[in-house]
């Protein structure tokens, strides 16, 4: 039986996308919002170089804080001690604390409910085509990306100006290309003439990912996103959890077909990949999936509103 109340997730995703990117003047002029809200991060991947963005991106903010130590110049041996001290004191406490608070409360639910880039991949997956699950082993890639591109390279690598650099933003982030690179290149002709191999590389990555999203469910969230990797372990300890009554399961597969990250729900529900989106609860004909006691207030919000996209 379908519970239409759950369609509130679609509208939550739409509202979060618009709410965090509501600087309309930026979309007209190609300038960025410079107000006080940018001191705060959203709990999801949302590029602060998007001309419409009102808030900062936590993955960008983490890298900037780590790179603030200035990298490590191995050719200047006399500076190594001071640089290592700077690196050790440039740990992004504020952003990590904020993300840990969100993760501790709701686990990976921010991914399932309010991330614009996650939502965009879901929308692309609605395009009719053959669908694939993809290799499960790739899920470990995102942990490597978090470690190497968000922490190690920004801390130790020197850019061409002898400073630290936000390596994930620079070489990999598809959200930055989609939300920052494309609109700014469009709105600022002066920028267009300066684009080179890096832009071509990032556009190719983005194109690959967008095409992959049609065939695979949320490929970037499952395999590449460092923020998804950060949140994943919090699913084990968060206040809000999803529970499953295994004994009554008739293995009909209805839940797994609806899962936006291709989980085998009866066996993998609530693991580090689960987005706490409740699509499986909505689909289960036996009503075996529920949310835990602490999250009942949330349950009442999402249960019976009858809103459809």
């Amino acid at each position, binding site marked *: 039986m379908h519970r239409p109340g759950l369609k509130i997730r679609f509208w939550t995703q739409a509202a979060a996308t618009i709410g965090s990117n509501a600087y309309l003047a930026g979309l007209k002029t190609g300038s*960025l*919002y*410079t107000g006080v809200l*940018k*001191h*705060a*991060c959203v709990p999801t991947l949302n*590029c*602060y*170089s998007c001309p419409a*963005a009102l808030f*900062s*991106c936590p993955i*960008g*903010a983490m890298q*900037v*804080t780590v790179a*603030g130590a200035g990298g490590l110049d191995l050719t200047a041996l006399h500076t190594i001690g001071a640089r290592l001290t700077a690196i050790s004191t440039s740990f*992004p*406490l*504020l*952003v*990590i*604390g*904020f993300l*840990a*608070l969100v*993760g*501790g*409360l709701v686990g990976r639910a921010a991914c399932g409910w309010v991330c614009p880039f996650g939502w965009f991949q879901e929308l692309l997956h609605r395009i009719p085509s053959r669908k694939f699950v993809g290799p499960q082993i790739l899920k470990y890639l995102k942990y490597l990306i978090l470690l190497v591109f968000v922490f190690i390279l920004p801390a130790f690598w020197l850019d*061409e100006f002898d400073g630290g*650099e*936000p390596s994930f*933003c*620079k070489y990999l*982030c598809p959200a*930055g*290309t989609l939300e*920052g*690179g494309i609109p*700014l*290149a469009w709105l600022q002709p002066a*920028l267009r003439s*300066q*684009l*080179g191999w*890096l*832009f071509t*590389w*990032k*556009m190719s990555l983005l194109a690959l990912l967008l095409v992959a999203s049609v065939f695979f469910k949320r490929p970037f969230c499952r395999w590449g996103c460092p923020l998804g990797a950060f949140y994943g372990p*919090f699913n*084990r*300890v*968060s*206040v809000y959890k999803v529970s499953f009554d295994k004994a009554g399961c008739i293995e009909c597969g209805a839940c797994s077909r609806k899962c936006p990250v291709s989980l085998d729900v009866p066996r993998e529900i609530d693991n580090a990949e689960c987005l706490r989106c409740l699509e499986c609860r909505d689909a289960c004909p036996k009503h075996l999936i529920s949310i835990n006691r602490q999250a009942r207030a949330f349950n009442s919000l999402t249960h019976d509103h009858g809103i459809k996209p």
Partner: protein
Amino acid sequence: MNDQIAQKSGQTSKTTIFVLLVALAMIIIGFRNGEHRSYFQKAVMVCTQCIGLG
């Protein structure tokens, strides 16, 4: 069995509270260190790395 589950969820709650308290402490220390100012500087200018300029 129910006892086991109750015990486990009790343990989970303690871990959860610990995680939330550490998170709050990190937020307070990070805020006092002025971390938000450093990424604010970056966020209000076009980030050449984000957009693929280098």
